[in-house]
């Protein structure tokens, strides 16, 4: 039930200590925040997350899907942020009412990377770290045992939600429900027979799960023990040092006027 979004593998990222990976993801976040107003300075961070994605062994299909979705998001941020900064900087392109300036483009790409970089970094973290070890990592950084496990449960239910939506949609289609016809409002209305059973099914699953967890002593002890604890090795130290040097370098660069 709690498979989460973890993808089994033996990649470099799979073999790293989860604490090293979490620190790396937080460094990506910090660098992306620092460089959010200048896409050029955030670009190396984006490239590093793409490299991490390719080294995570999660499969080309999933990686391509993520990058494709990100590129769609780039279009949206460009339109929004470039529009907001239309009066600043040198105009590069004018399409109808939309004027894209060099400043607007830098801010738009910076904002794009601010959203996309951490998403890609945490995707790498979650797809290469077993839910068991995510819970362990959170406890190691001071999150209470109950909260850490609850977070992992919430995260792990995501694939279940997707599965439930797919199953219920298929069943309702077989019963003659046509979801891809009609106006937008009509299509939304047609999703009610999908949403209601999905929510009902998820509530039922969560209810059953809560009873199973209660019966397995969940939350009884203040501190949970872990049989399989990851070990911090020299490889983790090297990875963290290189990451820190790189991302803190980006932060310093971004802070410069």
């Amino acid at each position, binding site marked *: 039930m709690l498979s989460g979004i973890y993808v089994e593998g033996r990649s470099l990222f799979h073999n790293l200590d989860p604490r090293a990976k979490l620190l790396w993801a937080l460094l990506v976040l910090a660098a992306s925040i620092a460089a959010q107003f200048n896409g050029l300075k955030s670009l190396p961070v984006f490239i590093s997350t793409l490299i991490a994605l390719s080294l995570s062994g999660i499969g080309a299909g999933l990686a391509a899907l993520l990058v494709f979705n990100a590129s769609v998001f780039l279009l949206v941020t460009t339109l929004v942020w470039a529009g907001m900064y239309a009066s600043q900087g040198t105009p590069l392109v004018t399409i109808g009412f939309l004027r894209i300036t060099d400043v607007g483009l830098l801010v738009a790409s910076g904002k794009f990377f601010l959203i996309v970089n951490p998403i890609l970094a945490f995707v790498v973290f979650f797809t290469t770290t077993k839910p068991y070890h995510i819970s362990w990592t959170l406890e190691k950084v001071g999150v209470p045992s109950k909260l850490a496990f609850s977070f992992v449960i919430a995260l792990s239910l995501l694939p279940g939600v997707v599965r439930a939506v797919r199953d219920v949609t298929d069943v309702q289609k077989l019963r003659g429900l046509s979801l891809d016809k009609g106006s937008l409002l009509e299509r939304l209305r047609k999703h009610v027979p999908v949403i209601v059973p999905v929510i009902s099914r998820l509530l039922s699953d969560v209810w059953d799960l809560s*009873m199973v967890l209660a019966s397995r002593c969940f939350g009884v002890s203040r501190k949970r023990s872990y049989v399989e604890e990851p070990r911090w090795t020299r490889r983790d130290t090297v990875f963290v040092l290189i990451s820190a040097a790189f991302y803190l370098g980006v932060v310093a660069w971004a802070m410069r006027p």
Partner: protein
Amino acid sequence: MGNAAVTVRNLWAKYVGSGDWVLRGVNLEVREGEMLVLMGPSGCGKSTLLKVLAGLLPWVIPGTVEGEVLVAGVDVLRYGYKGLAGKVGVVYQNPEVQVVTRSVFEELAMAPENLGLPKEEVRARVESVAKALGLEDYLFKDPQSLSGGEKQLVAIASVLTMRPRVLLLDEPTSMLDHLGTRLVLDLITQLKREYGLTIVAAEHRVEWAVEVADRVAVMSDGAVVLEGSPSEVFSKVEEVQKYGVRPPGVSEVAYNLVRMGFPIRIPVRLSEMEEVLGGG
């Protein structure tokens, strides 16, 4: 049989929102090492009784419970499921929701880890349960790749690592195919015969129940209406049928023979039928 492992006195229970009591004055006692099988039609209160015994109602499931319930020496209505931690193992109907982690090893380790036991102790318990139940080759498999019956075996194994004094089974075979049912029933039989575990099980497979159970309790409308050894209970064929429970096939055949005028006693097991008919 030793002291009472489960004592229920004048138990009344209902869920939030339900006007009627689901359990109405249940009295029950299960001794250490004894196996009691609860039988009765759907909605008679078997699962609710097990939820109370597990400390889930009213502690996890909102409801009202009155009476006295002692399980493994713990006052359940006072301390709830947390008071029973490590003392009682519960296995539910649906194997899918009971498989929680990504490997059988993690699954078996989960409860003792939640108890905060030292990791050497957890590992030792996992290994000993896996060995006893023949799950050693499964330890590093993804539970999702197992059949329904195998998942249910893993669910049972994962509560056994707590080393519970009492095992509560809520229709553990109702969602399994024939093969899965056989696997699970054989395991429960093994737990009863080889390990002397106290077991309270709600189960419909009557032929299996009469072979393994020390006692059978038939429930109807939230009360225990018949109780005794399988022979005592199922020899009352007409009464058992009245409460919506199917007696063993041999009992039904013998009962029909009695009605036709044959002066025989009513057996509950196939071996007894052979004796009755003079073939044993």
